[in-house]
């Protein structure tokens, strides 16, 4: 939490930013605006329990800023853009591939988010397929340039594109060229349904992901059940959210820190956890109140005015991290050593904890989000700065991974709590490239167990999936040396890779 008591402090931080040689001009500008925002008070009372819980690390607002003036994640209706154009941007309906790509690129520039870049750029294949009659070199070149433009101008790999579930010409082109492009942006998800997605297309996607860590696989039919007819897309790291809407805000609880302060399992479940959850729910509601009622976004932004997003389709994301350590801490208080992934009892305790979190969150009725029955959505948050010793979401701690089947069984059970996103990522030995079908078998098995989201990448490749987003190991090395890197995400990857051991994930020997 950034609290400035004196004008001098503000000036100092502004100066630090202006002097910082490893930030690009854009990154400096963004930081300066954040400082201005954080001069404001939080949208809660000064004596709210939030502050104490924040200081103990039980609650974290992900440094979203004190006075949010745009929703955290925005998923505009891009079909509408191509169909109808935009008055504000003076764009007419797209008639061919070049116009479609041009309109999209212009539009992306105007989609705000917590990262200042669009975190969702649509289902690229579905959007562009109507404009492609036959695949020829020109079409391939156009799509390639489109992807390069995205990577070099959206300087943040939380930007997310979807493809699938159908095999399309455009989908094939994208999968064919991303290995060669080695881009960090956009992050990609294949909406996979074994009933719809042909095996050869899915295998191509696996091959591509070993090569470029893209795309990850989402269990489409399972997500469809949750969303029950509401159109949705995968944004940011792996966040499933209503389209023509998105998420107002994301805050999170650190289960492990709450466990530290609990006497035993009973105290945790029945007293500590309810207190913290309640505090965070109210904090989030105040924040949304502020965003909806005090700021201009839902009044005057063209996205709202022209119907590219609608207030009723936005939700609050209630994030969870640190289940692994929470289980260790609580079991230690009962004289046991339970390890998630290895011990059956640990998984049962995990389920018990998550059942309680789910119930507490679902008992709260928000004034907002009719799309989600006026509830906040649970989200397996992937981690942020200061997360050393706190494992992302409900994942198994790196270094404690059991064999992959056991890993998936545990992960699949715990992923079920998170309709707004969760995921597990598995590095494979590069020999796996010779047999992508085998990884598809494993993914399909996982989806049969109701896993929501899974990805793979090649152990010795440059591109890897950090917590949800992509980064290049070579870029991180540059950044570690103090050199500039064009995309922001590399900053966020610094701790996970340098300190939280992402590079030590268990490699799946084939």
């Amino acid at each position, binding site marked *: 939490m950034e609290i400035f008591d004196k004008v001098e402090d503000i000036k100092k931080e502004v100066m630090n930013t202006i002097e910082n040689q490893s930030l690009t001009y854009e990154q400096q500008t963004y930081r300066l605006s954040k400082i201005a925002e954080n001069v404001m008070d939080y949208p809660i009372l000064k004596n709210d329990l939030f502050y104490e819980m924040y200081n103990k690390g039980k609650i974290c607002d992900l440094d979203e800023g004190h006075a949010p003036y745009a929703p955290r994640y925005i998923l505009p209706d891009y079909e509408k853009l191509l169909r109808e154009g935009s008055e504000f941007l003076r764009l007419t309906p797209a008639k061919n591939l070049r116009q479609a790509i041009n309109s999209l690129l212009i539009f992306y520039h105007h989609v705000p988010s917590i990262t200042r870049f669009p975190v969702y750029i649509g289902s690229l294949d579905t959007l562009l397929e109507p404009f492609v009659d036959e695949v020829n070199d020109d079409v391939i070149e156009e799509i390639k340039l489109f992807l390069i433009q995205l990577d070099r101008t959206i300087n943040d790999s939380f930007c997310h594109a979807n493809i699938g579930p159908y095999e399309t010409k455009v989908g094939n082109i994208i999968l064919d060229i991303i290995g060669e492009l080695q881009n960090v942006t956009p992050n990609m998800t294949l909406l996979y349904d074994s009933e719809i997605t042909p095996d050869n297309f899915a295998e191509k996607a696996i091959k591509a992901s070993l090569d470029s860590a893209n795309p990850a696989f989402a269990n489409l039919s399972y997500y469809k059940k949750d969303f029950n007819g509401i159109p949705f897309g995968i944004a940011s790291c792996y966040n499933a959210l209503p389209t023509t809407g998105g998420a107002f805000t994301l805050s999170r609880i650190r289960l492990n820190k709450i466990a530290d302060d609990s006497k035993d399992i009973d105290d945790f479940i029945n007293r500590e956890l309810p207190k913290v959850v309640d505090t965070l729910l109210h904090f989030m509601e105040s924040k949304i109140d502020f965003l909806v009622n005090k700021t201009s976004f839902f009044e005057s932004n063209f996205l709202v005015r022209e119907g590219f997003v609608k207030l009723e389709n936005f939700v609050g994301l209630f994030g969870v991290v640190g289940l692994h350590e929470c289980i260790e801490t609580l079991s230690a208080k009962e004289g046991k050593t339970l390890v998630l992934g290895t011990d059956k009892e640990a998984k049962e305790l995990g389920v018990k904890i998550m059942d309680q979190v789910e119930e507490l969150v679902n008992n709260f009725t928000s004034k907002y989000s009719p799309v989600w029955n006026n509830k906040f959505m649970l989200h397996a948050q992937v981690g942020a700065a200061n997360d050393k010793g706190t494992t992302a979401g409900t994942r198994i701690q790196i270094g404690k991974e059991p064999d992959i*089947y056991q890993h998936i069984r545990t992960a699949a059970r715990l992923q079920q709590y998170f309709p707004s996103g969760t995921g597990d990522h598995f590095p494979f030995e590069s*020999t796996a490239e*010779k*047999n992508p*079908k085998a990884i598809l*078998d*494993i993914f399909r*098995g*996982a989806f049969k167990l109701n896993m929501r989201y899974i990805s793979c990448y090649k152990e010795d490749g440059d591109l890897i999936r950090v917590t949800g987003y992509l980064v290049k190991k070579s870029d991180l090395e540059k950044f570690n040396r103090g050199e500039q890197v064009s995309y922001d995400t590399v900053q966020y990857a610094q701790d996970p890779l340098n300190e939280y051991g992402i590079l030590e994930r268990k490699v799946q020997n*084939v």
Partner: protein
Amino acid sequence: MCKTATINKIIPMSLVDGPGNRTAIFFQGCNFNCSYCHNPETIKKCINCGVCVSHCPVGALKMIDGKAIWDENKCIDCDTCIKVCPHGSTPKTHEYTVDDLMEKIEENIPFIEGITTSGGECTLNFEFLEELFTKVKSLGLTSLVDTNGFISLKSPIMDGLVKAADGFMLDIKSMNEDEHIKLTGRSNKTVIENAVYLASIGKLQEIRTVLIEGHKNRETVENITKLLKPYPNLTYKLISYRPFGVREEFLELKSIGQKEKEELKEIVIANGIKVIDC
């Protein structure tokens, strides 16, 4: 009917033993004695002489009722037992009934599309395999056999196994009879017969040859692919020799160069067979 089989190892997730993700099961005991075998300790069965027991640094081996019994959970995989065994065997095996093995396989559902049995030489346990494969099939999984092809699969007693298996992966060590005998101690006649027979009934999943410098690689690749030319959709894995795990006296063997390999690949393709470079 043999009730049990000696299993050296089960690999729950294997991406290199046939199409898709498979559980690979390695049987103990082989009827070949290939000079370049990567797991020479899987060739002979343990005769329970007990020599290795006292050498185990962690007490993972015990003689119980005249048998050398291995405690997998205590074992630290130092392989001292294998090094000291005067019979070139290993005590690190388990006896399995078909049902016990089925239990192990079922643990890996829904992640696998099937199993691959390998060795040693798994077809020495043909009755066991027939029963195993029939049960495996009832679970919707496929069974592949990785074999050296020395036992004639045409013989009536093997019929049940051939029917129960979904496919065979066959090692073609050498098409030159003398070289084959030098390499394996046995003739290649049945191996070749088996290759043609399996291809003709659509059950030859894959053939492969380990390529070693100075061997009659070209003769082997040329002759086998010519012979199998009439059967479409075959795959030929050309494997560059790697000296991991082989007996010390064969460490100096070398793989062929990439140029020679490319030439061999062309021969395979010219005969209408798919090639996998390993």
